[in-house]
């Protein structure tokens, strides 16, 4: 019952296109029934998971490559699947309102459903290659969603960045997974997870870990790959809410969590994750404080939380596992709500710039309440779900086995981050809802949106409050198996709002206090100048792209520079290397000189006239002289043929020589009568050296091969059978028309085709552009429109 879930979501994509033709919001809520149904179906299977079991399925795809579509539902997959479909339901419905006036809604929803299917497949995959398949699909659908408003250069840029970074990481991941599979002897997750000890001792382990982490870090926007995520905010807000906060970016976290029982437990894995995660968390939290764009602010806090999750996986232990699972859920709830709310504000006010907003409490009271709930959870204020999650994070930092130093650092980082969250949350809230109504917002009549639009953010925001108050028990049974999967061992989880007064609580309270104090100075902090360009990842990446382009252009100009003789030169040099080097190395010893005492004078003469003719051709000053010299060479070749027992060849050669000369004379009549020296002296010298080398090589090859009697030739067979079986006394002709008549058939076809080609060449002359006349664009392109509302 697993793969149908994925299939349903994927199959819904074409269906979504219908939205183009019908009432927007209703269609969207109708479509939302599909994720809702998947949610229900998944939940229906939760029972067996909660009893400690797994649901496993497998469809053969490419068995020879170990690439099967295998699916497993365990605690961790279940948690993710429920988040994806649950939040997905709300967001699909929300999108109908958000994009109600957009003609592309159908396309948008189709991408969303595709993405949902891919994401479901990713978390349900029971085989790392299957997982990778869906991993890449999420990158691609994300690209399409970020670039949804592709008329704007920023949207294209953001989409390109996100795809290049995540797909580049994906490649590293693929190689890493292949190494992992190689080491474990299987690509099945269950086998890999069971082979933890073997893997950690394997020689490929470090390489595999580094590559896999590259994949995860890029996907989950860890430093220094974080920059694509703010760029991805070019996507329409429902997509941001779904992909870039609740689901896709967590794929990296998911994979790290998934593999940590097998790969974790080493300094390489644990410390890398803890340090990179911690750094990302703190850095992004501080950057978030300074943003003015609502979505950018949320994007940075998302990066921060992704760092926090990564860090907790690295910190490990029981609390690490519990913390990861709990934080994933808590974050998904409040962050998707916040994104949707940002969309609501944007939608209603026409801007999401904090400097232009303000005083909305009077006009959008419902929105304000929901925002407040979500922000409380985000800030980790007690009784909210975010608080429970943050406590676990602190426990993980305190209880980690990575040593006192890292533990202390982690605690400090969490405290700073928590404080920064408070500031961010406060800034967001106060600048939007409190104070005076700003000039920008005054120009239009502003109210709460339709209730339908508030369902999306409302449900998760309210859940953030209700869960810790009323449903900690049921949620524990969801978090428990998930934590167990991360921990790698069975785990009893009992979430609680109140753990008593312990270190975690104290730190937590300290952070709240510190944050409250800091909030007073928030504005000053926010006014700090932005990061210099060389420190901004997206700028660096732009420059990297630029450098790649210019580098590639320079390289290509150098290599493919246009002149035929340069190409010929390189080709000749390549031949000298490909053949000359092995010849000098291995073949030259095979040369034998057969000095024939009976050599006749005219034989020597004929052979000697060939080099003479060649040199005469080279040195010819006139066209006619060159043609004559070449003809002499041809005649001498014919003479050699007749001297050495080849009358047929000789005749043919002579006739062809005559005809070629006629053709040469005909065609060359348009070309200049006299030649000059075409090249500088040194060029001629260089070419002469290459030509000499070529001559020696070919002559040497002939000597080495022709004097070698390793094997008897086929020839006697033809001599023996020509008359009797071929009915002819001229063996050459019998070979041509019978023994190897098939060659001759091809040969006359060559002649015939050459004629067709020449006919076309001489009789068909078309203008410069064969396709259609060049269209002239005289006007400069208009500047691209600036997007004000996204």
């Amino acid at each position, binding site marked *: 019952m697993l793969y149908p879930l994925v299939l349903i979501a994927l199959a819904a994509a074409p269906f979504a296109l219908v939205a183009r033709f019908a009432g927007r919001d209703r269609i969207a809520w109708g479509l939302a029934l599909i994720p809702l149904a998947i949610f229900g179906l998944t939940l229906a299977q939760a029972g067996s998971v909660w009893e400690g079991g797994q649901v496993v399925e497998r469809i053969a795809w490419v068995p020879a*490559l170990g690439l099967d579509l295998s699916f497993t539902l365990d605690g961790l997959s279940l948690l993710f699947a429920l988040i994806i479909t649950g939040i997905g339901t709300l967001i699909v419905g929300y999108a109908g309102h958000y994009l109600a006036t957009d003609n592309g809604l159908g396309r948008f929803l189709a991408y969303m459903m595709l993405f949902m299917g891919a994401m479901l497949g990713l978390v349900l995959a029971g085989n790392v290659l299957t997982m990778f398949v869906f991993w890449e699909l999420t990158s691609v659908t994300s690209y399409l969603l970020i670039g949804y408003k592709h008329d704007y250069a920023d949207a294209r840029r953001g989409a390109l960045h996100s*795809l290049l970074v995540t797909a580049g990481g994906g490649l590293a991941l693929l190689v890493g997974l292949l190494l992992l599979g190689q080491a474990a002897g299987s690509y099945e997750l269950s086998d890999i997870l069971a082979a933890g000890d073997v893997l950690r001792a394997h020689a490929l382990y470090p390489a595999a870990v580094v590559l896999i982490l590259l994949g995860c870090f890029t996907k989950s926007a860890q430093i220094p790959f974080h920059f694509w995520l703010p760029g991805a905010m070019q996507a329409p807000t429902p997509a941001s809410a779904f992909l870039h906060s609740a689901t896709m970016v967590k794929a990296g976290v998911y994979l790290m969590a998934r593999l940590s029982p097998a790969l974790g437990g080493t300094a390489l894995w644990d410390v890398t994750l803890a340090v990179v995660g911690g750094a990302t968390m703190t850095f992004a939290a501080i950057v978030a404080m300074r943003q003015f764009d609502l979505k950018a602010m949320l994007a940075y806090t998302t990066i921060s939380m992704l760092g926090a999750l990564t860090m907790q996986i690295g910190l490990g232990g029981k609390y690490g596992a519990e913390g990861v699972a709990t934080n994933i859920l808590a974050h998904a709830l409040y962050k998707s709500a916040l994104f949707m709310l940002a969309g609501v504000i944007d939608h209603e006010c026409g801007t999401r710039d904090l400097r232009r907003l303000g005083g909305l409490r009077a006009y959008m009271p419902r929105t304000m309440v929901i925002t407040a709930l979500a922000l409380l959870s985000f800030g980790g204020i007690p009784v909210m779900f975010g608080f429970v999650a943050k406590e676990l994070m602190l426990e993980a930092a305190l209880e980690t086995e990575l040593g006192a130093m890292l533990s202390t650092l982690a605690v400090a980082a969490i405290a700073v981050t928590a404080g920064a969250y408070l500031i961010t949350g406060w800034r967001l809230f106060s600048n939007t809802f409190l104070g005076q109504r700003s000039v920008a917002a005054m120009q239009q009549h502003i109210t709460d949106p339709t209730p339908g639009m508030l369902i999306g953010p409302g449900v998760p925001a309210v859940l953030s409050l209700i869960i810790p108050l009323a449903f900690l028990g049921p949620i524990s049974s969801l978090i428990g198996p998930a934590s167990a999967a991360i921990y790698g061992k069975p785990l009893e989880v009992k979430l609680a709002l109140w753990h008593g007064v312990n270190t975690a609580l104290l730190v937590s309270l300290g952070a709240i206090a510190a944050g409250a104090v800091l909030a007073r100075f928030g504005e000053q902090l926010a006014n700090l100048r932005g990061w210099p360009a060389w420190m901004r990842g997206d700028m660096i990446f732009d420059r990297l792209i630029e450098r790649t382009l210019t580098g590639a252009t320079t390289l290509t100009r150098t290599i493919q520079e246009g002149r035929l003789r340069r190409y010929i030169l390189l080709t000749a040099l390549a031949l000298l290397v490909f053949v000359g080097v092995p010849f000098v*190395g291995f073949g030259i010893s095979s040369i034998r000189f057969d000095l024939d005492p009976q050599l006749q004078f005219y034989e020597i003469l004929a052979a000697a006239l060939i080099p003479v003719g060649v040199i005469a051709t080279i040195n010819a000053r006139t066209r006619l002289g060159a043609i004559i010299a070449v003809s002499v060479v041809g005649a001498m070749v014919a003479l050699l043929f007749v001297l050495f027992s080849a009358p047929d060849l000789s005749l043919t050669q002579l006739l062809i020589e005559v005809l070629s000369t006629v053709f040469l004379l005909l065609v060359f009549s348009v070309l200049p009568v006299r030649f000059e020296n075409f090249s500088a002296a040194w060029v001629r010298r260089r070419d002469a050296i290459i030509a000499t080398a070529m001559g020696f090589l*070919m002559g040497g090859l002939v000597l*080495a091969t022709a004097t070698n009697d390793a094997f008897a030739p086929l020839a006697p067979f033809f001599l023996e059978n020509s008359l009797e079986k071929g009915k002819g006394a001229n063996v050459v002709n019998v070979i041509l028309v019978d023994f190897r008549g098939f060659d001759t058939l091809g040969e006359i076809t060559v002649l015939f085709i050459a004629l067709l080609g020449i006919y076309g*060449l001489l009789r068909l002359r078309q203008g410069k552009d064969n*396709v259609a006349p060049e269209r002239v664009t005289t006007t400069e392109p208009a500047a691209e429109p600036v997007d004000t509302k996204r």
Partner: protein
Amino acid sequence: MVFHLFIPIITPMIGGALAVLFNQQRLVARAIALISVLINLGYGLWLMSVVPATGPLVAQASGWFAPFGISLVVDGMSALMVMLAALLMLTTIIYSFYSIDEQREDHFYYPLLLLLLLGVSGAFLTGDLFNLYVWFEVLLVASFGLITLGGSRDQLEGGLKYVVLNLLGSTAFLAGCGLVYGFAGTLNMAHIAERMATLANPGLQTVLAGILLFAFGSKAAIVPLFFWLPSSYHTPPVAVTAIFSGLMTKVGVYALYRTFGLLFQNELATYGPWILLLAGLTMVIGVLGAVAQMNVRRILSFHIISQIGYSVMGLGLASAAGLAAGLVFTAHVMIVKMALFFIGGAAEQIYGTGDLKKMGGLARREPLLALFWFLGILSLAGIPPLSGFIGKLILLQVGVSQQAYLITAVAAGTSILTFFSMLKIWNEVFWKKSYDDVNRLPRVPFGLLAPGAALVILSVALGLLAGPLVDYNAIAGQQAFDRNVYITAVCGADGCEAVYRAALK
């Protein structure tokens, strides 16, 4: 002995001659072309269905037995290639119906296509080295005719480079052919393989293998022998570029596989690392060329080179699994690359230019074209579940399992640049707002869209149903890498040398 093995050769040959004779009636010429190709396609499919089970099929031209007569040998690799050649030619002919002007038709466009198919099929089928040369020349001269047909300045310029550099490669092949005969005394490929396996003069054999590597390398457009390709491929009509991209270099790859899988397998130990080096360079230089270009077809042309690197990588891995992987990749790239040429070409055709800077806005104007293009570039970049992913995965897997980490890394790294350069086209041609009013452009007619779309759908299908493809090529790779299978099929269990001795008493 399978007497009808000649069908894929005879059909286009007689078809080509007849199409010239009836060239005055355009419809007749078209019909002849279509029918010939369909026959080849059907026969190729039949071959693919039987060869994995029966092993190589053999026929002797003129009835003279091997190693004296010319053998035709079809193993898994040949059958696949024969089928693909016909399939791709079919799409090209259909595309040509809608895109080729009447003047070209009057100047023997369809006969040239058929004769190109003749050369390609002959090269895939023959089991005789000199006969291979002849078919190479057939396909080469047909390609000369096609690339220059039309006679615009660009075509002539590019054509001259194409012709001269290819002639040099051909000459090297002919010389190599002669030297192989001089050394081994035979031309039958099975017989050559058998004699070479005795290692009578390993030094000389290494040199001979070097010549063939050069000759076929220049046909396959590996570094540093690719110059002819980007100089010329963007100059003829789209249909011609497309079929060239599908077939020409792949014949070179096929010949390289034969050379080192069969004739000079012993030399693979010596050349393997160097082939891998060349493969890596080919991938990187090719893709950087693509990154640098700003024209749809020129980008795609450089990609051909880059992808040849992957095909050659399969050979450099020097194992049956490597060949199988290379074949899977080659089959995939033949299909997808042609599809992209068709689709990009259709865009070029309606826009009147292939210059990225002048194009734009086609995502809205031509959603179907955009859809298939996007799927195509995903496939080319190796995104699952399309065929490109299978091709990339199998190559990387073999690379990893054979500890060829460096080339594996290069192959993986190259594909992100591939993706980048393809996205460049996507961004500029489809997503970017057009400076012009796109709605004034003519719509892409069905006939220009269908061939590319069909090939993209095929790529999707090959990805989703990759099991049979991979299984088939595993067998094909084994057949191509096991000299005894080939020799036994051609000369019997005792081998060609025994036949040779018996025939000469």
